[in-house]
């Protein structure tokens, strides 16, 4: 069986390193002939996934990103070696709860990733988190 081609990145936890990931995703999206809209959605979701990995994993260790290319879709895995989290315990934000209240204004990353990608999955424990997100090449698959 033919192995799907993949691109792998290792990012240090440094300011704005998420843009290295988006540069790569743009090249991969172009290679796959994805629309500009889909490419931009992937980049935006990837920015948020990287920020989550950088900030919430509480790790100084490098973040790994795997882009797995198939005929039907692009699968992206963002892997950190941080403290892990329980995604079911995270409440999706609502702007009405944030404007004019004492509630923290941040916390949009997971919601944006879910809205912008076709599927999102997490595997997380105390040794780290792997976020897997998929963008279909076409909308009717």
């Amino acid at each position: 069986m033919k192995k799907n081609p993949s691109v792998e990145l290792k990012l240090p936890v440094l300011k704005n390193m998420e843009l290295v990931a988006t540069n790569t995703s743009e090249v991969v999206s172009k290679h796959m002939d994805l629309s500009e809209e889909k490419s931009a959605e992937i980049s935006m979701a990837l920015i948020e996934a990287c920020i989550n990995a950088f900030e919430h994993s509480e790790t100084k260790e490098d973040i790994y990103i795997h882009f797995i290319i198939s005929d039907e879709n692009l699968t992206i895995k963002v892997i950190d070696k941080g403290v892990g989290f329980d995604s079911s315990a995270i409440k999706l934000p609502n702007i009405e709860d944030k404007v004019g209240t004492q509630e923290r204004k941040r916390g949009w990353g997971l919601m944006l990733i879910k809205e912008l990608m076709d599927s999102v999955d997490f595997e997380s424990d105390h040794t780290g988190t792997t976020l897997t997100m998929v963008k279909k090449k076409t909308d009717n698959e």
Partner: protein
Amino acid sequence: MSKIIETNLINNVVVIKTEGYLNNDLGEEIEKITKKYIETGNKVFLINLKDSKIVNSIGASILIEIIEQLQDIDGELVLCELAPIIEKTFKIMGLTKYCSVYGTQDEAIKGLA
């Protein structure tokens, strides 16, 4: 990498034009300049994001803080020239319920007149 490239007062509207990644740093720059203009009595702010094609949710969250500050003084935040993905991101967050979005700066200035 990202900065405010222009700030103008046009018809009592403070127009802030940015360049580059709308992240934490640029968001804080915008907030700082907004506060400065609020202190001198200005209430209506237009952010022109024509040259900012990429955003993150931290930068966008700072816009929520600016909206709150403007609500306190019956002011208004308006956005223009958003890249499609930025507009989509702001819509998902619900940010566009709290600030109008215009295609161009001229349309925004006319709309605010």
